[in-house]
């Protein structure tokens, strides 16, 4: 399978500096764009949080031996696969309970914090999510 660098599926990736926080707060108080239709921020977006990035996506497959997982993400019907390396020591949890990589079955939704390192996307934390969030 071709590994797709995370930069290829970045959707409006932004670096957030502490200075931006009050500015964003002010922007929240302003009226929305008239044509936006209330489109919410996407949970599936890859976004920067400091040096780390976050992705919420569906587990497509896990390989505990290779310590990797393939996550399904995308936009509309343009779906993409992202490969994440899960090194030993990565915190995997569901509602605070520790999990093993082999516990992440296909179809489970996870929120992954990761860092890019050369060609790898290195997971830092993996947390199982319940479906939901929206409008």
């Amino acid at each position: 399978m071709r590994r797709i660098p995370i930069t290829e599926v970045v959707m409006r990736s932004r670096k957030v500096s502490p200075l931006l926080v009050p500015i964003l707060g002010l922007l929240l108080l302003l009226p929305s764009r008239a044509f936006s239709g209330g489109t919410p921020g996407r949970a599936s977006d890859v976004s920067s949080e400091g040096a780390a990035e976050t992705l919420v996506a569906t587990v497509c497959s896990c390989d505990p031996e290779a310590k990797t997982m393939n996550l399904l993400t995308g936009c509309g019907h343009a779906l993409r696969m992202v490969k994440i390396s899960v090194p030993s020591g990565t915190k995997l949890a569901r509602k605070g309970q520790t999990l093993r990589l082999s516990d992440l079955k296909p179809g489970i939704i996870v929120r992954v914090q990761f860092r890019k390192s050369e060609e790898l996307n290195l997971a830092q934390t993996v947390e199982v999510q319940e479906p939901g969030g929206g409008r």
Partner: protein
Amino acid sequence: MRRVASLGVFPLLGAALVAGLGCARPIKTGDPLPGLTKQQRELFEQGRKVMEKQFTPETGLGPLFNAPGCSECHEDPVTGGRGDESEVHVALLRPDGFCDPLAERGGPVIQQHVTPALHAALGIESEPVPPEATTRASRTSPDIFGLGLLDTVPDSKILARADPEDRNHDGISGRPNRFTDGRLGRFGRKALVPTLREFIEGAFVAEQGITNPAVPTEESVGGSPLPPGVDPVPDPEIDQKTVDAADAFVRFLAPPAPLELTHLAKRGRVLFSRVGCAACHVPILKTGKSPVKALCHKKVAAYTDLLLHDMGPDLADICLGLAAPSEFRTEPLMGLHLMPRFLHDGRADTLEKAILLHGGEATASRARFQALDDIHKKALIKFLESL
């Protein structure tokens, strides 16, 4: 003389009354929603130009694509209407029950055309269907009228109708689909996509091979990267302003006005509910809050619940997200009078055939329809033809 003079007053009075009542011009198919601001109407018109633009490889088309422009497939009777094109979607339903849309192999949308440069490089006419695909689906191009209103229906209103365990024992068990991040889906024949904006952003890439700020990467060719030199335009190939205009056009397109009901069709409307069609084809949905006044707290005669329902094995094709092969989103019936063919793949050329092809959860309703005498069947069809 006096009599003639007084007669002449009536048309004047009539005109004054009409003007005074603010008699609105009837909405024509392809019109924007009433009540848009001047700025919104201008954006709608800019969006129409984007929709009607024919892209070329030099302006971003391909290398893989289904059509060179939005209006190629959404064109009849006006821009935003249906098209006569069909496309191919694939999926792999794995033994563990997971639905794999084969994203890493070019799925789920398999593009039917390639640019001359890609043809020259690989010798292919279309994207190859991945050999792993266990199912393949044909999809017609529906109209896109009224989708802004559907986008504004709150999730809570949709979820309130879900009854996945059929706890009320009516045989109807609509359930929600979920996108890859868990959000409620509502757009597409399998209700995978949560928002209209994402549907449009994804369609630019999956249908036309046009990258944009939300999806800055091209589709792969069956999972293989594009050969060098076949995609000369730097990504993203269109800017945010262009996407916003296309979004505004689709969002602000009004639903087609239904035809006037004949006496027979009025009887059909009653039968529509009595037979059980309205259990899934819910006649009215209400939108929620929106910054766009024309979309805010409106009733839309959509005739859908935006949920998945089992339609039986005869209609089954691909899985997608949580949708099993036999599950489809209840197709909205607004604008039905403009459609020459019916169902997700256009296999029915009459409404009666379409009803008779309903299975699964619709089996009881179908049986009730079949039990009607001819005049009542005709009444129900007449009602559907008016939508």
